[in-house]
């Protein structure tokens, strides 16, 4: 059916009274997401779009049974917000915030990996289970339910590929945006096993980019998967040593090149087309 979120997910919004938090709360509710609580310290007792606001995540979870939290707070408060969500015991914390210092996330991710909470992001667009639940900022109108599991590092490039899949009738179980930061809460190897275990996912699309070795690590895991995977890697022509925006897409020391990623993936039988246009056809082939 889906991974991580579904129609029963009870979502809490950290930073709900901020501009982004409020806007996307409305968007998520419009999509049908059960947004059960918001948190802004000092604004407990207020409401946003009829959603009750609490002073702390612990209070909100206790009062509403929220099990997923989405974080829209400024970068300097985001590490604390991630830890607060984990401490309150939500199953999934989705950090949309862009621009969190790397060393802050090194500490946060190391800690949260020791807890029962899964962290997605920071600097990620969130995730969506078409027709059921949307957590984050992915546009809801480009997805439809179907058999494709999608996991991606980039945001808008993913939207592009997803909307193409959708137009060609290839719906999705869940689309997961892990974000492009150097130290993400979830990597490809954290999300792929979820799709492997989800009975409704028949094919997985993985959208990577230059930098880091997540795609290479994923290739090792894909070798053991029973489900087919189609991949796309952006940044084939980017010059080495240049950081491409906040995405942290950077190639250095001969590691993290598009070539290395494509080779690792094709070596385990994953097609990696030159153009993202070709993704739907490759998916359709594998759906049989």
């Amino acid at each position, binding site marked *: 059916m889906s991974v991580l979120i579904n129609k029963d997910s009870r979502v809490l919004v950290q930073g709900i009274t901020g501009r982004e938090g409020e806007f996307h709360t409305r968007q998520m509710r419009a999509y049908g997401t059960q947004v059960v609580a918001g948190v802004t310290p000092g604004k407990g007792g207020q409401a946003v779009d009829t959603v009750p606001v609490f002073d702390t995540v612990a209070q909100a979870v206790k009062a509403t049974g929220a099990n997923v939290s989405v974080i829209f707070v400024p*970068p300097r408060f985001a590490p604390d917000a991630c830890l607060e969500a984990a401490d309150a015991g939500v199953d999934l914390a989705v950090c949309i915030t862009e621009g969190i210092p790397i*060393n802050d996330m*090194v500490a946060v991710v190391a*800690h949260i990996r020791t807890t029962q909470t899964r962290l997605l992001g920071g600097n990620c667009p969130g995730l969506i289970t078409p027709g059921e639940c949307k957590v984050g900022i992915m546009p809801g109108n480009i997805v439809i339910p179907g058999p494709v599991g999608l996991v991606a590092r980039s*945001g*808008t490039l993913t939207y*592009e590929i997803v909307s193409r899949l959708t137009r060609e009738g290839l719906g999705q179980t869940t689309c997961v945006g892990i974000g*492009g930061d150097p130290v993400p809460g979830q990597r490809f190897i954290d999300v792929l096993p979820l799709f492997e275990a989800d009975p409704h996912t028949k094919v997985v699309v993985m959208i990577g980019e230059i930098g880091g070795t997540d795609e290479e690590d994923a290739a090792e895991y894909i070798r053991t998967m029973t489900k087919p995977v189609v991949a796309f890697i952006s940044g084939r022509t*980017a010059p080495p040593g240049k950081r491409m*925006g906040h995405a942290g897409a950077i190639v250095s020391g001969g590691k993290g090149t598009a070539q290395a990623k494509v080779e690792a993936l094709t070596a385990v039988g994953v097609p990696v087309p030159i153009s993202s246009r070709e993704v739907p056809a490759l998916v359709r082939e594998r759906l049989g």
Partner: protein
Amino acid sequence: MKIHEYQAKQVLARYGVPVPAGEVATTPAEVRAIAEKLGKRVVVKSQVHVGGRGKAGGIKLADTPDEAEAVASRILGMDIKGLTVEKVLVEEALNIAREYYLGITLDRGAQRNVLMVSAAGGVDIEEVAAETPEKIARVLIDPALGLRDYQIRDACYAAGLDREAIAGAGKFLKALYQTYIDMDCSLAEINPLVLTAEGTLIAADGKINIDDNAMYRHADLADLAEEGQDNPLEAEAHRRGLQYVYLGGDIGIIGNGAGLVMGTLDEVKDAGGTPANFLDIGGGAKAEVVASALELVLMDPNVKGVLFNIFGGITRGDEVARGIIAGSARLNIQVPIVVRLTGTNEAEGRALLAQTTLVPAETMQEAAAKIVELARAA
């Protein structure tokens, strides 16, 4: 953000790292004065953000102030890999017995910072890493515990540092780690750490990159931030708050989202063009941001055409189109502009574009082909 060698050494010195006596200069006369003051053999080092300065002739020894002045007049103004040398660091020359490498950076795969130590210092460490990785000892740093003394010893012994250097190297590594954490570095290196003929350890060169995301904690470094941009267009982009990377081609590229912009670069290359830049305007595409981005891209005199590739997302396509139209209208545009717009309300957006001189395109591939063709014709 990169800072210059001389700035990195100032930072390290604040953390107690011994560095050679020296000063920075912008004219040969200043270099002469510094060399006279130092009163010994000096080294004149170009201050540019690029590796291989030595091989390019950007680092020279000088036995006398006369020679230092002469050397400096050759180095200042020199072009190294496309960068003009505007400053040199003039330092006492060291009697080098051994050269080591010390560095800390992020290991993305491990999601931890990693300490690296090598007895093969003084050369391009990336070359060592690629060719003889066993010569670099690596230990991962647990963020909860910090860099521990035993890890420093583990690394130094595993790297095979000379025994007489090991006790002393610990001080450098502790200072390097403290610098790395306090200054929110993404890279901090001492390379080479020199063991002199006299038996003392000194940081002959240092390199520090600072995490841009953490700059809000370092208001005092704002001045360095701008200077850290080698390319004048990148410096201007930094002032405008735009994510711009200069690439040297003739097709300006503007899009929203790093992955999408990179994908666009790939398509332009595949279509036979050469991207002039990477420019990610992020979400929203408001008119003022679009105008600022376009203006910046057109400051590059080589640009013969501009490609917009925008995914509407939650922001509707017609709004994005209005942003682009309003933004471009403010500027006196002399080059062709291709706009590829997709996502929500893309039809309405394209309808608006149809009333302008902006050239619409349906797909990334079509957009890339069109702009390459138009730029070639221009």
